[in-house]
């Protein structure tokens, strides 16, 4: 028993370390300008964030398309899906996105990203526990990856907002948005409590794909309105 407990403890330790390291991100950013550390500029931050958002959207699209191919849905359930983020008001087209201004846009982005942290981890857990289908085993890794990307992206956008506030580009109306405040618990209960079946998975993936596309587009518009000279 002691041996098994020791091994379990060791495993937990490694997992924790792994998770911590993964949460740190691909490249450390020195937010406080420590010595010997290259402080990224706003353009650098924008680039990283946009890259991450593209990656997030790409993975979500892949997952969703694989889901659709695997399951061959007989119906097009586009109109019938309901996502838990439908309550968040988002600009629906380009003019609206450009019209609402940087502060609101940033806030929307942060809301969206914050609202997907928990559902994605739940999805991952559900998919990994679903032992009947090989597909879930294959795509559960991607689900894990997506959840990590979302976390990183949210942190990155927050840092970028702070930088923009420092530079005076962004007003002070954008406060720190805690994930709990973003998503009301009622919306989260939209989904079934407890286990999620594959349809739920499918819905989640569809919704996430849509929202990741929103985030990607909003971030790009934000960049091109803030720093128009860079690759816009």
């Amino acid at each position: 028993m002691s041996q098994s407990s020791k091994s379990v403890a060791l495993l937990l330790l490694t997992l924790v370390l792994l998770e911590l390291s993964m949460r740190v991100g691909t490249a450390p950013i020195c937010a406080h300008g420590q010595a010997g550390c290259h402080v990224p500029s706003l353009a650098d931050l924008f680039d990283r964030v946009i890259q991450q958002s593209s990656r997030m959207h790409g993975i979500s699209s892949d997952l969703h398309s694989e889901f659709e191919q695997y399951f061959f849905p007989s119906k097009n359930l586009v109109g019938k899906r309901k996502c838990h983020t439908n309550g968040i008001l988002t600009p629906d087209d380009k003019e609206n996105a450009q019209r609402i201004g940087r502060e609101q846009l940033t806030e929307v982005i942060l809301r969206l990203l914050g609202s997907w942290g928990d559902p994605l981890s739940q999805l991952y857990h559900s998919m990994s526990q679903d032992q009947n289908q090989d597909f879930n085993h294959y795509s559960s890794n991607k689900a894990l990856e997506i959840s990590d990307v979302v976390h990183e992206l949210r942190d990155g956008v927050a840092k970028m907002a702070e930088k923009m506030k420092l530079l005076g580009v962004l007003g002070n109306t954008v406060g720190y948005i805690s994930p709990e405040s973003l998503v009301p618990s009622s919306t989260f209960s939209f989904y079934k409590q407890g286990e999620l079946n594959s349809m739920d998975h499918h819905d989640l993936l569809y919704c996430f794909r849509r929202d990741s596309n929103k985030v990607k587009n909003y971030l790009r518009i934000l960049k091109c309105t803030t720093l128009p000279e860079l690759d816009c």
Partner: protein
Amino acid sequence: MAASSSSSSSSSNLLLLLLISSLDWLSTPGFAFLMARDHMTSSAPLEPHFTECISRDQETFRCWWSPGSFHNLSSPGALRVFYLKKDSPTSKWKECPEYIHSNRECFFDVNHTSVWIPYCMQLRSKNNVTYFNEDDCFTVENIVRPDPPVSLNWTLLNISPSGLSYDVMVNWEPPPSADVEAGWMRIEYEIQYRERNTTNWEALEMQPHTQQTIYGLNIGKEYEVHIRCRMLAFTKFGEFSDSIFIQVTEIPSKESTFLLTLVLVFGAVGILILIVLIVVSQQHRLMMILLPPVPAPKIKGIDPELLKKGKLDELNFILSGGGMGGLSTYAPDFYQDEPWVEFIEVDAEDADAGEKEDNQSSDTQRLLGLPQPVSHHMNIGCSNAISFPDNDSGRASCYDPDLPNQDTLMLMATLLPGQPEDEEAAFDLVERPPAPERPLVQTQTGGPQTWINTDFYAQVSNVMPSGGVVLSPGQQLRIQESTSATEEETQQNVKEPKGGEDTEEKKLKELRFQLLVVDPEGSGYTTESNARKISTPPSSPMPGDGYQTIHPQPVETKPAATAEDNQSPYILPDSPQTQLFAPVADYTVVQEVDSQHSLLLNPPSRQSPPPCLPQPPLKALPAMPIGYITPDLLGNLSP
């Protein structure tokens, strides 16, 4: 459990059916479209349905419908389009904001277009028959098909070293309808190319940049290239652009380099030929500069070929009077083209038996053509205007090679070494002087004459083709003139204990006729006695300068001369030791060569005769041929 199993089995059956059917559908190129179609159309009579809804810029979109098999509804306005925008739970169906009946198209402008919001489309006929398919619901971002890129063109990157293939850089502009600049659409591109008149397209990897390289195209073949694009992370491609054609023919640069090398080669060859021509044309000049000719021995009237090594027999023959022409007057002239060649002629002069002072104009002087108190003919004839200055004489002397002197020829004959049988002939020749009474040797028939200063001692410096021997100036001359270049020659052999013998020297100056004589058994120089004979005619120790020719004279003809000659201040060596005390500055007589090949000279002062003695014999210069004197000949000539 049973229900689940049945449902699972039915679902698996359905799955199997769908799989099999999908295989058929996959084989057709319009698979995706057909799938969509199947979603949109029902099985039996074809209802009016929407064929396609497309957005080009994610800000507007269009939908096309078709009446299907219901042709009565094909007239414009028979079918109406309604859409439902599910942005709120209380949304309602609305009619198409803009109809384009000619196309059966419904256009949704910017105000009516919202992204990420599901749209559902519906057709309604006039009698409120609704044709709706669940599959006709979509979100705008999923129906985006961008316009094809514009301004497609290509540039040549490089050509392989083998010249068979090349790389091409293709570049283009994003479609103007897509707002790539604002970041609203992110597009990736796909290039496809193929050889002309083939059917299969090669597709390159999709990438979001507006340029791409195509590698490995073949020279000479024509390629067709087109491009399409789609939104990043989405599935629907836009249409292909118009094709452009790429063709690269044979590279002319190779030809140009080939031509360049050809031109260079020909230029180099031409220059080489020019240089060769210049060298050949100026060959003689170049040879003169690089290899100046060395004067060869020249005897007047004798072919210079004979003077080369190993042809002594012929030469002797000629000199003895045989052969064609020989040394006669009519001997062919071999040196016409060498005007600088000079042959000193010697003429027999009327003997002026008198004081040596009377004969101030020594033979040498006469020979050299110096102005003299005695009117003697001087041989100043020249073959041409150019006079070749002689180093020893200090005065130019010329010689006309056209008139060889018989006497000189005879002298030459006698002077040749090792020809005892010719001596008779030589003597005969000598005995046949044209003018025996004339003391001077006629070097030219009828021409101006010179006579030599018959000092006994003289140095033979050169032999003329005519037979004349070019002598170096005598000691008297040198001592009087106090300049001599030949002193060193004698000083090599002589150790001069000057001093008390100056007086004797002075006497000798006047008397002596310098002749460098060597033991006849030796190298061929004349002995003293031979020299005496030789020099009998020119016995006057004139202070002549320059050259003195030696005329071998027969002892018989000139006994008087010889007698006088005997009294000439020749030095008969009594002992080798006396030679060392020879006061002779320039010349002395070499008596013999000892074992170490050193010349043993005679002291010149030993037998200094009365001053008057040598004059007559010197002056009484018979006409004698000028030439070499061999020891053998001299031996015969000795008294």
